């Protein structure tokens, strides 16, 4: 009797064990490695998970986005503080690269290279990438910057100590210290507008609809349509920041 019981339990042990091991093996074989698909972090959780798309082919470099961002968010007017700005890349026939962003593009762009010297030229709007593995969040010593459950990277200006470590850690130059407040500041994806059902200011004023945003967790969202139908790329994918700002037609010169 005693022996039989122990035999049973041993069999039970092997059975359970093989189920667990087999299960892990099967799960490992069938779990897609989505990291490669996005070159970034796959969408997390079940709620909203915001992603942004910018179509470089559509950007006309009017700088309305940069201007609207400053007006909507009371960003200091001086040309050293931008949550959103536009760069013009000009690749010349001799192969040299010229990058310009006079006042972040707010006053418009003047073509500085004559047509005959230009190989190609294009505008690149820049803003916070709302990285899923944000280097800026990682380095904040006090937890004054964080990713919300919806995937927006925010700053808590009532808790920020102004150590500027996050400014150093952002590979995209998207952060600055507000000279009046002494705390870090960055794009909030206009969370105060999203919450009221409005678009972020820069999306609102884009005349060519070069910018779109949406829920990466929703298969029918604009952003997923955009990702599906364009050849998208993030800036500096080698840094593995989990950037969620996807560019269509991004040239390799853009950094």
């Amino acid at each position, binding site marked *: 009797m005693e022996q039989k019981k122990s035999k049973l339990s041993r069999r039970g042990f092997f059975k359970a064990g093989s189920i667990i091991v087999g299960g892990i093996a099967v799960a490992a074989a069938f779990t897609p490695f989505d990291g490669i698909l996005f070159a970034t972090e796959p969408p997390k959780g079940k709620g909203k998970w915001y992603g942004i798309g910018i179509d470089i082919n559509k950007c006309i470099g009017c700088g309305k986005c940069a201007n*609207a961002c400053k007006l*909507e968010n009371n960003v200091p007017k001086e040309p050293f503080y931008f949550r959103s700005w536009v760069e013009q890349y*000009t690749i010349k026939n001799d192969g040299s690269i010229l990058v310009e962003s006079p006042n972040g593009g707010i006053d418009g762009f003047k073509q500085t290279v004559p047509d005959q010297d230009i190989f190609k030229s294009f505008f690149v709007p820049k803003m916070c990438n709302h990285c899923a593995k944000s280097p800026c969040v990682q380095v904040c010593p006090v937890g004054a910057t964080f990713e919300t459950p919806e995937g927006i990277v925010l700053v808590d200006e009532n*808790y920020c100590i102004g150590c500027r470590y996050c400014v150093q850690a952002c590979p995209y130059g998207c952060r600055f210290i507000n000279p009046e407040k002494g705390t870090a500041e960055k794009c909030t994806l206009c969370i105060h507008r999203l919450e*009221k059902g*409005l678009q972020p200011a820069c999306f*609102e004023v884009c005349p*060519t609809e070069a910018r779109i945003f949406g829920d990466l967790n929703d298969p029918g969202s604009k952003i997923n349509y955009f990702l599906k139908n364009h050849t998208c790329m993030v800036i500096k994918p080698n840094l593995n920041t989990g950037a969620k700002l996807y560019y269509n037609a991004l040239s390799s010169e853009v950094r």
Partner: protein
Amino acid sequence: MPQQIKRLVTAFAVFILMFLVLQQVLKPNSFGKLGHYRAMAIQENEARELHYAGSARCTKCHDEMHTDKAAGFHAQLQCEVCHGPGLKHVLYADKFKDGKLPDSLKLHKPDTRKECAICHQLNAARIKIVFDTVNNSMIKQVNALKHNLVDKHTKEELKCIECHNPHQP
């Protein structure tokens, strides 16, 4: 226990205890609820003041402009692209339906060449851009510094909007 050890242990215990008490006292209430941050910070960020109203609000009153615009090239342009942030304007109008709008709340009417040139000035990066994929039309480019700069008859400087209706260019 030797005397010096006793004193040291007491000193360290007092120090650590004070630290732990201070930590509990100073830690903000909502800290750690959602992650290593103040959960309240999300609400604080959400509570900030708006400036742009969104064009849905504009068409409520300025319906005619909207229909005007819908027929032309500027159909997909939101009102606030050219006129600037208008929430204060809209809120005032909502509140005092027939009241006269104070000048400070009147929205900007761009009429200079410079303002049109922001989008339409010739630029190598702009030239190939197709903005309207349905009609496959390119954005119109001119050299705003030369294009019909002066009226041929009166010899006075011309504004873009004297020939082009901005709502129906």
